[in-house]
């Protein structure tokens, strides 16, 4: 379980996250909405442990451990992984080698890559000249090898062409064990209990909701998590009235 309590974060001199509370239980997926610059990526980077995001107060708990000041690699080892929106290029490091590093040992890169239609990129340097959509598939491939328990997705569908969007959506659903549906002899409750993977997904478009059932939607606005609601509802509301109006409206509903 991820539990964030009263988290305040500074980037340089600027306060970018204000009193964030967030709880993601095993098996749950949350969607994070918010306008550009509202702090969504910063929240993900803070959870991942990027040191330039300075935690001023509050704490982050994961699997019962206080990880607030834990280095990135230890968080990764504890089971946190991230799919980046704009990862850096690593010259001279082949995507194939990167996948192996993620797996922490030998792995069938080709078979894994086939699932995300990415075989022909295995011998190219990581992210070197990749298009937006190619980066997303490369990131997913790395997560497939890494198998984290909590996955942070930063706009996983942006830049992905129509042909690959279904693929990307289904892979994310699979990573988050959404296939563990109630089936014969297993109740809905049991299926949910089997599912342990957690997800936090940033999206602007909501396309991802067509593939991944999410438990909660949250809006981050001006560094504050302003409302919790059904993700579809938030998406519709934002589409109709914009973020500012949406935040005000849902906040009022939550108060009443």
């Amino acid at each position, binding site marked *: 379980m991820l539990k964030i309590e009263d988290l305040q974060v500074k980037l340089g001199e600027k306060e970018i996250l204000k009193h964030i509370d967030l709880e993601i239980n095993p098996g749950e997926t949350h969607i994070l909405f918010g306008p550009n610059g509202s702090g969504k990526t910063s929240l993900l980077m803070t959870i991942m442990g990027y040191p330039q995001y300075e935690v001023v107060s509050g704490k982050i708990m994961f699997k019962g451990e206080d990880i607030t000041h834990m280095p990135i690699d230890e968080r990764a080892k504890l089971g946190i992984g991230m799919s980046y929106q704009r990862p850096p290029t*690593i010259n001279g*490091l082949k995507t194939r080698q990167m996948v192996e*590093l993620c797996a922490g040992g030998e792995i069938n890169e080709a078979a894994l890559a086939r699932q995300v239609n990415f075989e022909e990129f295995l011998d190219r340097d990581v992210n070197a000249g990749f298009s937006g959509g190619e980066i997303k598939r490369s990131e997913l491939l790395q997560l497939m090898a890494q198998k984290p328990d909590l996955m942070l997705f930063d706009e996983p569908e942006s830049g992905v062409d129509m042909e690959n969007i279904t693929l990307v959506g289904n892979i994310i659903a699979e990573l988050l064990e959404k296939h563990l549906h109630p089936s014969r002899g297993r109740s809905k409750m049991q299926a949910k209990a089997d599912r342990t993977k957690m997800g936090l997904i940033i999206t602007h478009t909501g396309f991802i909701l067509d593939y991944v059932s999410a438990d909660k939607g949250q809006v981050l606005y001006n560094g504050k998590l302003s409302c919790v609601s059904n993700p579809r509802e938030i998406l519709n509301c934002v589409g109709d009235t914009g973020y500012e109006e949406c935040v005000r409206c849902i906040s009022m509903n939550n108060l009443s």
Partner: protein
Amino acid sequence: MHINEQFELKAKEAIHKKGAIGPDVDLSTFDPTPSPHFEMVDDDLRNLPREEQERLLMAGLDVTEKERGGTFLQMNDHAVHCHSSQEGIEVLSIQKALAEQPWVRDYYWKLADVGADKYTAAAQLGLHDGYVIRSLPGSKSVYPVQACLYMHKDGMQQNVHNIIVAEEDSELHIISGCATAPHLKRGLHVGISEFFVKKNAKLTFTMIHNWAEEVMVRPRSVARVEEGGLFINNYISMKPVRSVQMYPTTHLVGEDAVARFYSIVVGSPGSEYDLGGRIFLKAKGTRAEIVARAISNGGKMIARGHLIGEVPEIKAHLECKGLLLNGGLIHAIPELEGHVDGVEMSHEAAVGKIAQEEISYLMSRGLNEEEATSTIVRGFLSVDIPGLPPQLQAEIDRVIEESDKDVM
């Protein structure tokens, strides 16, 4: 006057002439006296102490001679082992070749200037040995010929002259290493190399340096590439050395001739490198590329590159990337000279440190900071060299892999 007397005369005039660039070496502090002659048969090579075999292997010479088309090994001042196992490829010691093969005289001091400086002079006046490697017209070498110039005697001066000829339509691959015995601390290596790539021939030359902390190195090399010829020249040096200064020159004289230089160099504290490459593009359709990767973890490094386009319709590119890991200095000096309209020449140079963003990215995949850094460094040093046979690429990768621990 006999041609050799002319060389002697010119050399004598240059015995006090300092090199055009780089720190001066006091030759009087090194011992050029030859040692007693001996030869080594295959078994002798394989019975060398393990430690020495490893030194040789790190310089590309495999005593098992597996996947090698020939071997030349020079110990101190003379060749001790020399043979070719491929038809159409000749491997000779230069002393023997000068004495017995008149054709070698057509190439001796043809490109390099014997009067250039005191190092070229020393190689004429006190020549020890060196190799002559030639691929006959139309012959294609399957495996690389391995050559190694090994210094065993502490404080010695080694004077070497090499001649490499790829005849028309032939293909020749050479891996040439320099190394010192484990106990050797101090020495001077002077090496003249003259490369002749004839019409439509292909020559790849991979030089691996594996010196000791107090060794001075002054190679002087010049190449000439004829019509349709390809010359790939790789240089790798990752071990400590006192000072290396070299500025090999290549003349592309025939249409569509191509030269590519790749160098991968690590400068340790106390090491001083002044390296570069100069390529003259003298005929239509010629292409040149110089790619350098330099890492300094405390050493002083000058990376030069000079491309000279003398005729239209040529294309040349220079790329130098430097990484400062632990102090030290990297000075990139790229030069482009276009003498006429219609040349296409470019360069890119960058010197910096490892981006924190890249380290964090790899850490988020589970690598610790040290692993992430060494992964990035290894990537930085891995250069894809088009046209290099896979086993030579593997050899380069192996050297980089093994030296990795010393870099960090």
